[in-house]
């Protein structure tokens, strides 16, 4: 009987999870779904993840101070990557809505944006993992800086959507 109670509780919890997914998809108020892009200072982010900057700090600071400063920089970079990841999610939604437009050009651009924004989102995930690893070994690992140009590209494509849909 104990097994039945435990399994029944697990099943109820899982059914509740499924119900929540259905509710989120069909009954959630529309205004909650429309998110805004978070402003990101990419110049500052590039600076934080620039290997030259890291090399300069390593050469001019004592090891202990370098590690402390590098940890602070990595923490800041993590905040930027998290914001970029959030923005990538908004761009995915934007691309999805464009994908369903009747205009074939806008729809094709929407498909492209979705794919690139998903890639950006996955890159952000891997970058966050790498940054967490770099926090543990700040003297050995430098944070990645490959995200910025991907983000720029998707944002420009999304910005061009407006012009295409208006045309």
């Amino acid at each position, binding site marked *: *009987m*104990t*097994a*039945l109670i*435990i*399994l*029944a509780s*697990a*099943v109820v919890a*899982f*059914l509740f*999870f*499924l119900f929540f*997914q*259905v509710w989120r*998809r069909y009954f959630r108020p*529309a205004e909650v*779904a*429309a*998110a*805004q*892009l978070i*402003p*990101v*200072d*990419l*110049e500052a982010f590039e600076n934080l993840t620039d290997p030259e900057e890291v090399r300069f700090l390593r050469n001019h600071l004592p090891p202990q101070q370098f590690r402390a400063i590098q940890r602070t920089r990595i923490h800041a970079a993590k905040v930027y990557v998290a914001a970029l990841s959030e923005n*990538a*999610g*908004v*761009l*995915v*939604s*934007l691309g*999805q*809505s*464009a994908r*369903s*437009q009747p205009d074939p050009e806008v729809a094709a651009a929407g498909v492209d944006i*979705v*794919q690139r*924004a*998903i*890639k950006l*989102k*996955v890159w952000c*995930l891997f970058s966050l993992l790498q940054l967490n690893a770099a926090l543990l070994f700040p003297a050995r690992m430098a944070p990645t800086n490959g995200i910025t140009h991907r983000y*720029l590209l998707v*944002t*420009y494509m*999304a*910005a061009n*959507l*407006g012009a295409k*849909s208006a045309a």
Partner: protein
Amino acid sequence: MDFQHFIWFYFWIAPHLLLLAVAAFMLRNGLRKGFPVFFSYLIFEFLQFCLLFAVHSYQGVVTPLYAKIDMFCRAGSIAFRFGILQELFESPLADNVPLRRAMARILNLGTAVLVVLALVFVGSLYYSILNDRPFAGYVVIEALNAAQCGVLALVFFWHRFLGLRMSSFAFGIAVGMGLAAGMEPFGQALSVSLPLQYFRIPGLLQMATYHVVVLLWLYFALARERITFDFKAVPLLSVREQAAELGRITHL
């Protein structure tokens, strides 16, 4: 044939016939291309039903042959369901083969961990009450079903993480799979906990759940994708503002 038998046969036969209808609508609406594993699963389920029904009609349910075929078919269904979950997980990355492979490896790792956890969980539950259980294989099947619930949750979290809205049919498949995989371990637990005179109730409950699941798949195979998202309401303005700002930065 009394009413109870009629209901039992109805819940056994009707969902499997409806599976063919789901497959037909998938073909008609061009969904087969997007979900080839799910389509194969529908055909497999129908064929295994035909086989089991034939054996049942010829020999009866309790023969060793029926039990062997049933076990084999359940194993096949579970393998297919893991394939469908992988299909749902990888669907957002359909156009990017390297990324899809990388994420598939991560999913496989997560699946392996979930299977081990489920085996420990289900094994520990049945260890104390079912030492003389005749079909130890069913415990493994229950554990795999429990693991599938975990993988399905991963699929939902994955789409949520990407900010991606599942297609209507993919969502229907996922919810249906969740109901089927979630209720099976419960049905098995019920079957060993209830007195012998109620032995049909867990089976009926599972078959009724599966019937609901197939109706759900049928509905989503028929339903047209309705986009309620307002394209104009999307924050295009803020995107444009940010793009202009980014342009200013990169031209410095």
